[in-house]
């Protein structure tokens, strides 16, 4: 009973605190504190519920149990992280986004190809591309190369579509201005069209971050060496060691948020001139 009361009290306290925060004038720390308080409240409620209702630890481990697990198997988690994120997801992300960027710039010179590629690319971007995973695992073997290949296929089309659209973003007036400066194709591309495409390109890059992680992890369900986050998740579920699964999820969430945050930060630096980045 005590723990249930704890959960209810934590919820009420967290909510009241946030209501109070919302009434204050907005500063940078209050806009940061509100979501943090909400997150901590959720964790406290989770802990209280699990203990209060005596939910089986096998089904839903308490946050403290997960934290303890992260502490004891840090080495294992790091090995999985290196295999899946550093080797699989990152290399695939770089290859996929790089290839899409180069092809988009090349296609941009031919309006005919562009008109054909945009609808097809949009269509493929909406398909369940993740289904390609078993095929790519068959082609490239069980190790990280096949995971990278899945990631390449997943990030390629969103990136391509966004870059092609971005390259069309510069308006006629600006292009005319470049012409009056007697700027050639390359100069116009570098000084005008690529910079004005940047908001779109970063949109593609940001979508790609989550897709890359998902692709690398799900691809491991179809076969992997005995290391990797997807492998660990699927085997631990089989052994019902769910605290390890949650630990992997925590690492994945951390990696995903950091990856996304990094891209968002880079976007802020590069596209500081865009209306959405100005306050």
């Amino acid at each position, binding site marked *: 009973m005590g723990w249930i009361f704890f959960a209810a009290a934590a919820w009420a306290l967290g909510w009241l605190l946030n*209501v109070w925060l919302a009434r204050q004038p907005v500063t940078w720390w209050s806009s940061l504190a509100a979501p943090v308080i909400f997150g901590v409240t959720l964790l406290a409620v989770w802990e209280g519920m699990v203990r209060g209702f005596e939910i089986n630890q096998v089904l839903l481990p308490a946050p403290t149990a997960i934290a303890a697990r992260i502490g004891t198997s840090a080495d294992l988690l790091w090995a999985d992280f290196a295999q899946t994120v550093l080797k699989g997801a990152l290399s695939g992300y770089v290859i996929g986004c790089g290839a899409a960027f180069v092809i988009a710039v090349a296609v941009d010179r031919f309006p005919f190809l562009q008109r054909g590629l945009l609808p097809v690319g949009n269509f493929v971007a909406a398909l*369940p591309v993740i289904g390609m995973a078993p095929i790519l695992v068959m082609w490239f073997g069980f190790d990280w190369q096949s995971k990278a290949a899945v990631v390449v296929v997943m990030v390629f089309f969103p990136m391509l579509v966004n870059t092609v659209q971005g390259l069309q973003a510069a308006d006629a007036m600006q292009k005319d201005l470049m012409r009056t400066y007697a700027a050639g194709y390359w100069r116009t591309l570098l000084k005008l069209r690529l910079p004005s495409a940047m908001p779109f390109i970063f949109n593609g890059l940001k979508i790609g971050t989550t897709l890359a992680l998902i692709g690398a992890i799900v691809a491991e369900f179809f076969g992997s060496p005995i290391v990797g986050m997807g492998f660990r*998740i699927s085997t631990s579920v089989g052994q019902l060691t769910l605290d390890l699964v949650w630990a992997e999820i925590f690492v994945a969430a951390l990696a995903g948020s950091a990856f996304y945050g990094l891209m968002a930060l880079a976007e802020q630096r590069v596209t500081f001139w865009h209306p959405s980045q100005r306050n």
Partner: protein
Amino acid sequence: MRRSVVPVLTVVGFLLVFWYAAAVWLNAPWAYNKAQRAGETLSFSQVVADTWSQKKPKLPAPHQVVKEVWETTAQKAVTSKRSLIYHSGVTLSATLLGFVLGTGLGILLAVGIVYNRTMDMSVMPWVIASQTIPILAIAPMIIVVLNAVGISGLLPKAMISMYLSFFPVVVGMVKGLRSPEAMQLDQMRTWHASKGQTFWKLRLPSSMPYLFTSLKIAMAASLVGAIVGELPTGAVAGLGARLLAGSYYGQTVQIWSALVMAAVLAACLVGIIGVLQRVMLRRMGMG
């Protein structure tokens, strides 16, 4: 629209040619291997013919996939376990349930975020953060845990679809519900409209274009969720199960035909929403 038919067909044609060429390139080693063991030498045309008609090719040629899809849809009874229509139906029901749940949750959250400052400040960042978690990775656990509590079948898969589809709806609806300009909101105030009236007569209608755009993304995401949700259940039924079974037994043609079905399903579902969008927005005088 009509302007882009020829370019699109060109690109699709190019992709098909590329596919056939890749099939020759990837399947040729096996063809040569077979011929060597039989003590024959192959001419180029024989190799090409062989690579396009192998039983378990590395990459099946398009016509093999089309044939397999035709055989497993039109020529099998719908109730048969080998019918792709049956498996698509299983996946479709989970997709739709998850989509409806996700859309409902997304709209509710969006209304809360727009009308409640506390929610806007504390919940909105978590909605965004929730999508940086590769939810598909947790799919196996969600399904096992819900199974242990006695919930099985459609609902666990639908939960994964829901998680994937609520996000675009929240983001789109928050944007949409905030899209009326200050002038329009002032107008409502001069008419002494209540909060409810402002919502039903101004905010909700003006959010519709945003909603439909989000729904298309949500539908595609929901399908992906349902397919991945079928993987850990041990290949019982559904398109995801077909993918897994195919990858266990090296049945590449089966994998590709399941993929084609998934693509067709995605195209149909998104297409239906597109049609609804056009009809609805035209009726509201926005098309």
